[in-house]
């Protein structure tokens, strides 16, 4: 039986997330847009609102709510601020490998702090050679007594400068086919974040490089089995990362539709609001259609994910569709705004810039098509 309705409890989660976003995030947007910096107030508020705890099991201080609840939260936060949704989605991305592959000691050590926001997480996979195919990465580790030594650099890392706990993928410097994943902590000798990027959008979400120069990591920080790290990165990160981008994209899409409707209802041309014009209605209809289609794809994937079923193709399709749709919606909503769509005072310009960043994050649309095609072939 297919039930396309949210439960009463899920409706309450949405309400709670929306209230949080409107009261705690919205007032900080201007400051984030102007400075381009992470708002520590927002980070603190995210922690207090248990936003990082959603996917962490209850026994480790989390809420154990699963992926549909996470998608709801991301969609609502993304509707208000795509930058904050992006930051939040990557926290979960850094958390997921520990939940899925961590041993009990690692879970006990890291998860409770990550659940409260006392510790912030990210994941280090992408390198200048690319992120969707991490086998091309050049970051290497070698065993040194009881420790591992990591050398290399990671780029385009969201939360690079604020994260305390970083899940890093590296390859065996003697065996190019063997990858391992390590938990690197802020302050470890030989590790430092570097070069903060200036993105066109998602201002208030930090992106930068991670540098490892003879970074010594104790063996207790090896995540999963040595040599099997690619699985850690691909299975945990792939679905959670793309699922997170679906949330960010749906948020932007919703915001574009709402902003376009508001403007079209207020703006008067030829003696009546422009919403009466068929050309405008066509755009509104397309946005609404994309939103509904995107949500169906996204929540179907998250429902599978909650069941523990395979959902990589489903998330690839949802990520492709929603990111493309958000970019289309931002363009259409900006067009509806006419000249105002070029003015920074109007939120639509922020959505336009943010929608640009949705494209490559967690894999470009072209990479998504490769994944989708592979499943069809």
């Amino acid at each position, binding site marked *: 039986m297919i039930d396309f309705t949210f439960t009463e409890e899920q409706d309450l989660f949405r309400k709670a997330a929306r209230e949080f976003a409107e009261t705690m995030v919205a007032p900080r947007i201007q400051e984030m847009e102007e400075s381009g910096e992470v708002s520590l107030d927002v980070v603190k508020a995210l922690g207090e609102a248990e936003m990082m705890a959603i996917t962490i099991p209850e026994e480790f201080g989390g809420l154990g709510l699963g992926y549909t609840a996470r998608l709801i939260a991301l969609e609502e936060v993304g509707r208000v601020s795509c930058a904050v949704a992006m930051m939040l989605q990557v926290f979960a991305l850094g958390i997921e490998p520990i939940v899925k592959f961590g041993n009990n000691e690692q879970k006990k050590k890291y998860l409770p702090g990550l659940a409260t926001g006392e510790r912030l997480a990210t994941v280090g996979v992408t390198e200048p050679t690319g992120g969707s195919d991490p086998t091309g990465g050049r970051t290497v580790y070698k065993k040194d007594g009881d420790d591992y030594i990591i050398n290399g650099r990671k780029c385009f890392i969201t939360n690079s400068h604020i994260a305390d706990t970083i899940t890093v993928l590296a390859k065996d410097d003697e065996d190019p086919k063997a990858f391992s994943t390590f938990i690197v902590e802020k302050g470890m000798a030989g590790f430092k974040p570097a070069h903060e990027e200036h993105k066109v959008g998602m201002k208030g979400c930090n992106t930068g490089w991670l540098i490892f120069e003879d970074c010594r990591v104790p063996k207790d920080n090896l995540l999963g089995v040595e040599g099997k790290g690619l699985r850690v990165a691909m299975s945990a990160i792939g679905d959670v990362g793309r699922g997170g981008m679906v949330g960010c994209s749906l948020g932007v899409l919703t915001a574009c539709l709402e902003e376009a409707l508001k403007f079209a209802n*207020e703006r*008067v041309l030829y*003696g009546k*609001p422009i919403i009466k014009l068929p050309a405008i209605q066509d755009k509104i209809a397309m946005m609404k259609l994309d939103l509904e289609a995107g949500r169906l794809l996204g929540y179907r994937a998250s429902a599978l994910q909650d069941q523990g079923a395979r959902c990589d193709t489903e998330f690839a399709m949802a990520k492709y569709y929603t990111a493309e749709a958000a970019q289309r919606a931002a363009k259409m909503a900006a067009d509806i705004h006419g000249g105002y769509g070029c003015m920074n005072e109007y939120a639509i310009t922020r959505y336009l810039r943010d929608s640009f960043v949705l494209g490559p994050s967690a894999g470009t649309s072209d990479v998504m098509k490769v994944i989708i095609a592979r499943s069809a072939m």
Partner: protein
Amino acid sequence: MAREIGPVWVFVEQCGGNVLPVSYELVGKGRELADELGTSLEAVLLGDSVTGLAGELFRGGVDRLYVGDDVLLKYYQPEMYVPMIVDLARERKPEIFLVGSTACGKELAPLVAARLKTGISAHCIDLALDGNRLLEQIIPAYGGLISIVCPEMRPQMATIAKGVFALPGPAGRHGTGELVELAVPQAEPMKTELLEVVYEEAAGLTLDSAATIVAGGAGAKDAAGWRMVEVLADELGAALGATRPPVDEGWIELDRMIGQSGKMVTPDFYIGVGLSGELQHMVGIVGAKLMVAINNDPKAPVFDQVDYGLVDDCQEFLPVLIAKIRQFKQGKTAA
């Protein structure tokens, strides 16, 4: 069989030994209603050293004044005031009982009504007698006006804000009246104890006596837009008022709200900025001499209720208007 009609009652509220203007206004309206019903107008006044206020109230048209004059009654305390009024009402069986929509009146009136098992309407903007000689209590709601009546129970009670009715004219045929002193109950231990009353000066120009008022609504859009409304008021030396949404947004204090559940004001010049013209607001400003509205929606109901209308987005228009005002003032100074 015609029922004998009881008196019309007005609760006279005093503060620091002065009768509140709203109470005088209700005396005026009460006189009209009493005449129309062919009954008398009675008023209840509680306070400390307030008997001297009787003359004025008689001149306003009161036939009989019940005065409770005691140091215990200096401030409104429900446990003192309410039983006295309820006991007297049970004895006198008033037909109608009008109370000012003040902080104290709004607490006292429903307490009295519930004890008398009667109905009460809130913040009426007009009162009239209908075909059945019932008190028609008119309040704005749902974009129009609704009439409320209380067919069975007595008294028919209503609260009315300051400014809805005019002050009574010069004394008519009821030059003097009868003064009845009320026995003040012995002070008993009360469940609530009034520790202190603190009076505060209102910040900014007060709405009550302002000659010019600028009122803003949801069309200000955000805090920055609201700031422009504030600047406009500053430039015009006007008092600043608002509809409900800016209050809910926290841009302005509740005591700046104009309308049915806020203040009733009568400036010479009113400018409504970014407000749609919901009746709940407009009833508070109908008495203004000249009214201008600025709103981006040409179909907004406000344009049916003002003298001058101007269609524009307030965030875009206000900076231009403010610049023109400054330019005008500079020109005047120079000349």
